[in-house]
């Protein structure tokens, strides 16, 4: 199958994009947005590296990142700040891409790893690992296992409905509730020390990330994100509808299952790094769709950048702007994301006819 034949068909429903000029304009706008987001992200990361208890000038901080400058600067930047900032970048991008993929697969802006219980499963895995007292380096694996467990539960309950979205969301809430009860049980049983750590996990926090964690989970996130970009063509074929996809030689069910698995793995890994940070996966793809129009590989890149920017920004807010210390970043993203989600749900969930006005 040639990709060129697919591009017009994919955007066909969009009346404005049917004009050749409009397509080029949308492309140019997306490119511009990508450039802006990239610049902002670099700036944001630079600011994050240079601010803290010890303030380091931006050029010095950047030099220290590569091992030059005073030894104390290098220590602070490379050992404490860089892993945290990079974790925010990688986890934010991973969550946003996973959310975007899920929303496209289900053709519904409400489908997201938080809503269907995958990130909850990941934090269950991480907390379970905490409970056994095993090495923290295994956290990504545990989170991945938990995410896959949640996905398996979800599949077992929702499979026969061919993944109808409303049902999936509700079953996801149920899975989430069960796993949350398990986490809650551990929090009640743990000594206070571990309970605090577990709670931090389940709210989403970037506190105390280290290089080994970043290498493990971050590397895997990068690999899976690359796989998502490579699979974009197949997602586009699925966008045409199951019948057309079948006609083009793509088995819709097998393909969708594979892509779903990618999304689940990606979201679980991101949660391994940052915890189940709420609403990023849900809000970012929607925002990008608003700004950049119908999904393209370029828009997906913009999604990744925006997710990274959002999480980095929220973490900066938590660390340096808000007066309260030690806030988990998930509390901020939830506070920012909730009104957004509500507006979205109300617009979408309006029943077709309501009488008695």
């Amino acid at each position, binding site marked *: 199958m040639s990709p060129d034949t697919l591009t017009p068909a994919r955007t066909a429903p969009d009346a404005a994009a049917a004009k050749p000029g409009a397509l080029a304009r949308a492309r140019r706008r997306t490119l511009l947005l990508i450039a802006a987001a990239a610049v902002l992200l670099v700036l944001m990361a630079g600011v994050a590296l240079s601010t803290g208890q010890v303030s380091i000038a931006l050029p010095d901080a950047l030099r220290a990142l590569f091992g030059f400058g005073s030894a104390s600067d290098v220590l602070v930047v490379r050992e404490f700040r860089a892993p945290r900032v990079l974790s925010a970048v990688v986890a934010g991008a991973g969550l946003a891409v996973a959310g975007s993929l899920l929303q496209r697969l289900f053709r519904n802006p409400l489908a997201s790893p938080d809503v269907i219980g995958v990130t909850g499963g990941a934090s269950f895995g991480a907390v379970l690992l905490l409970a056994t007292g095993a090495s923290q380096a295994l956290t990504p694996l545990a989170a991945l296992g938990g995410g896959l467990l949640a996905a398996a539960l979800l599949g077992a309950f929702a499979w026969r409905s061919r993944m109808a979205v409303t049902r999936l969301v509700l079953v996801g809430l149920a899975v989430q509730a069960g796993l949350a009860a398990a986490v809650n049980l551990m929090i009640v049983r743990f000594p*206070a020390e571990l309970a*605090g750590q577990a709670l931090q996990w389940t709210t*989403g926090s970037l506190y105390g990330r280290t290089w080994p964690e970043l290498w493990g989970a971050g590397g895997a996130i990068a690999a899976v994100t690359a796989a998502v970009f490579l699979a974009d063509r197949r997602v586009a074929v699925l966008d045409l509808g199951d019948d057309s996809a079948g006609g083009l030689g793509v088995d819709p069910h097998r393909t969708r299952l594979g892509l779903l698995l990618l999304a689940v793995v990606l979201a679980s890994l991101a949660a391994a790094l940052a915890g189940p940070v709420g609403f990023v996966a849900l809000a970012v793809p929607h925002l990008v769709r608003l700004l950049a129009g119908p999904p393209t590989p370029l828009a997906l890149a913009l999604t990744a950048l925006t997710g990274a920017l959002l999480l980095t920004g929220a973490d900066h807010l938590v660390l340096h702007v808000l007066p309260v210390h030690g806030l988990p970043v998930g509390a901020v993203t939830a506070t920012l994301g909730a009104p957004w989600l509500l507006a979205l749900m109300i617009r979408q*969930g309006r029943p077709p006819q309501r*009488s008695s006005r």
Partner: protein
Amino acid sequence: MSATPAPRSAAARQVSLLAAGLGALALCAALSLVLGSRSIPLATVVDALSGTAHGADADVVVGLRVPRTVIGIAVGAALGAAGAVAQGVTRNPLASPTTLGINAGAGFAVVTAIFALGLSHPLQYVWFAVAGATGAALLVYGMARRSGDLDPVRLALGGTVLSAVLASWTSALMLASRRTLDEARFWLAGSVGGRSLDGLYQVLPLLAVGVLLALLVAPALNALALGDETAQALGVPVARIRVLGGLAVVLLAAGSVAVAGPVAFIGLAAPHLVRPLLGNDHRVLVPGCLIAGPVLLLLADVLGRLVARPSEIEVGIVTAFLGAPLLAVLTRKAAAR
């Protein structure tokens, strides 16, 4: 359901089923008094209750298990009735006090009070829990209001989102102070053990008014089930019934969360258990849930005491474990329809 030749026999069937439910409730209460980290023979329990037996076992029964069972019955009844009314008012079989953000509101208010005021006893939490539950309910109500009427879809969605936000704020507060974490995590799990009857007495007026309101709006909920327009044509003041029903839900849910902490899924499960037995008539459904709620709660509590002997699992955690698959199954049924 079996063929019912005449309405009179249907009523007789309902009455006998309600009586059977009361029997089941008595059985569950007996189990709750007998079973625990240490089983106490029924004869000793009876003697302890009548005041003729003394000693360690009698002290356990009178001092711990009787309050626990009484609180379990009151909380279960309140949650069951609240669930039935919530589902009737929103016309949504998945509505429950939990879904409407009431538990999360109570949790956030209590944790804030522990954090800011340094409270350390569940008895002090009662009115904060009531205030938080009411505040959350009012907020969700405000979000769901549309031209003087309640939009059921907005109600459920608003509750879910508000719960998510309040939960994250709650854990932020608990992370900010170790003392708060230590105090709050046990309360937040939801339990009827180790609570004193004094807490129940404080909220008893709320629960009583709530039950009364629930029974009062029950007949109108039948009309509401036919759709707003039909109900209006039948002369039912739809908006007023929604407000009164909502008030009943808030009073019942707030009162129960104040006594026992957040206990999930009882409000959701009780109506679904009662409906196949007694039918959809709210005049029977609400009393049925007043019985089914405590049955479920006591069973879950006894189960929590048995599986982890000699320790125990909080009833809120047990109901969440059992309720999750239930919600999944209910969803499957709702989708099949």
